[in-house]
């Protein structure tokens, strides 16, 4: 959820998905994980030809199918929801699916996160002090994809910042995150930390900094920061 102070200005999940979708380029092979990232596929601009990979061995996955009477359990997404296969799609077994995740064939993976640090460290599988957590494919995808794109709310449900100077959650992979898409901003991970690329309409860079643990930097000319609009896609 958005920081209470900015709830009215924050993007909703569909708007976030639309922004992430705009990032994906033609001919990319893109892994879609579970949760929020699954909302990205329907928002991909029609002229872009993107091949979606699902960790359970689907290359060329289509959007989730809603409202079917009989679910085909043999064609489910990583999030275990019924999906379609695009024309030209194919299936591989699990070891080959993760070979693809590690061997540089994935142009991007879109993952959710608990925390992302200024140096690109990612935490998304286990709570601090917990005895266990769900890794799923996240460690392989984070370690192997050419671009790790994180899609998450800017703060936790309790209003705590998720963009941090140093991880306080157990890491999933170190130094891997390229870009973070939140409900308030788009940020790039650089050698100097988080660069504020875009902010949601109605907020200032200082507003975003106030709900962010890690120091942010941005170009001082206002026009240098793109404004995220909240219109429906």
């Amino acid at each position, binding site marked *: 959820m958005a920081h209470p102070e900015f709830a009215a200005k924050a993007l909703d999940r569909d708007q976030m998905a639309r922004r992430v979708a705009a990032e994906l380029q033609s001919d990319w092979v893109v892994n879609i994980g579970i949760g929020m990232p699954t909302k990205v596929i329907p928002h991909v601009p029609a002229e872009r030809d993107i091949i979606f990979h699902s960790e359970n061995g689907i290359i060329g996955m289509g959007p989730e199918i809603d409202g079917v009477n009989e679910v085909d359990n043999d064609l489910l997404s990583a999030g275990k929801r019924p999906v379609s296969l695009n024309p030209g799609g194919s299936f591989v077994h699990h070891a080959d699916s993760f070979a693809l995740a590690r061997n540089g064939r994935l142009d991007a993976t879109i993952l959710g996160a608990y925390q992302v640090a200024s140096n690109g460290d990612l935490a998304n599988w286990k709570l601090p002090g917990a005895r266990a957590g769900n890794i799923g*494919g996240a*460690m392989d995808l984070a370690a192997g994809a050419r671009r790790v794109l994180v899609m998450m709310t800017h703060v936790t449900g309790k209003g705590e910042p998720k963009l941090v100077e140093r991880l306080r959650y157990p890491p999933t992979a170190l130094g891997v995150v390229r870009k973070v898409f939140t409900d308030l901003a788009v940020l790039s991970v650089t050698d100097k930390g988080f660069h504020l690329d875009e902010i949601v309409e109605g907020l200032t860079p200082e507003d975003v900094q106030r709900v962010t643990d890690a120091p942010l930097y941005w170009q001082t000319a206002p026009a240098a920061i793109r404004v995220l609009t909240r219109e429906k896609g």
Partner: protein
Amino acid sequence: MKQRKANSVAEAVTGIKNGDVVLIGGFGRGGVPENLIEAVCERKLRDLTIVSNNAGTGHTGIARLLEEGCVRKMMCSFPLAAESIVFQELFARDAVELEVVPQGTLAERIRAGGAGLGGFLTPTGVGTDIAAGKQVLTVAGRDYLLETALRADAALIKAHRVDAVGNLTYRMAARNFNPIMAMAADHVVVEAHEEVPIGGLDPECIITPGIYVDRYCICPKP
């Protein structure tokens, strides 16, 4: 010709023993050999180590194995899914052991086990809790974890079609872990949706050659 076909699901699983490490195919509800798992439950085996991506959903399949006290240890990548209610309850009171393995590492450990390898080097998990106690090797400037191969006493496999030689095909994403698990166990049991005569499967499309299959049974319903 080796007789692979079992007359019933119950007969198909008679080779599974107390204390076995058992690989079970499937991802979510896709490609899970539900009938074989239920038949293993009926045998009231004990001390099994179950290797599967998930830790069971609801009260059937792997969840039932857990609920009936057949399982000593789970090895999986995603143990705490909301639907894994039985596992979560047992784990909370230390009634079952857990080894969480990253999904790609789990798949590759099984593949390596079926390929006669001792292990492999992966970038996955470097710098995380998963690296604890594991050797880190640097190759061409990049750090990798040494992960060991995983072989099992038995595997429970879900296939789409089978012929009398045991050749298997799979359907869509139900393939998932099944072909690699069929290569990584000493005793391989298959539940197939449909049986075809020898020659009824295009050799170009056979994913698992019958030489890996010890027993199979036909279960038209999932």
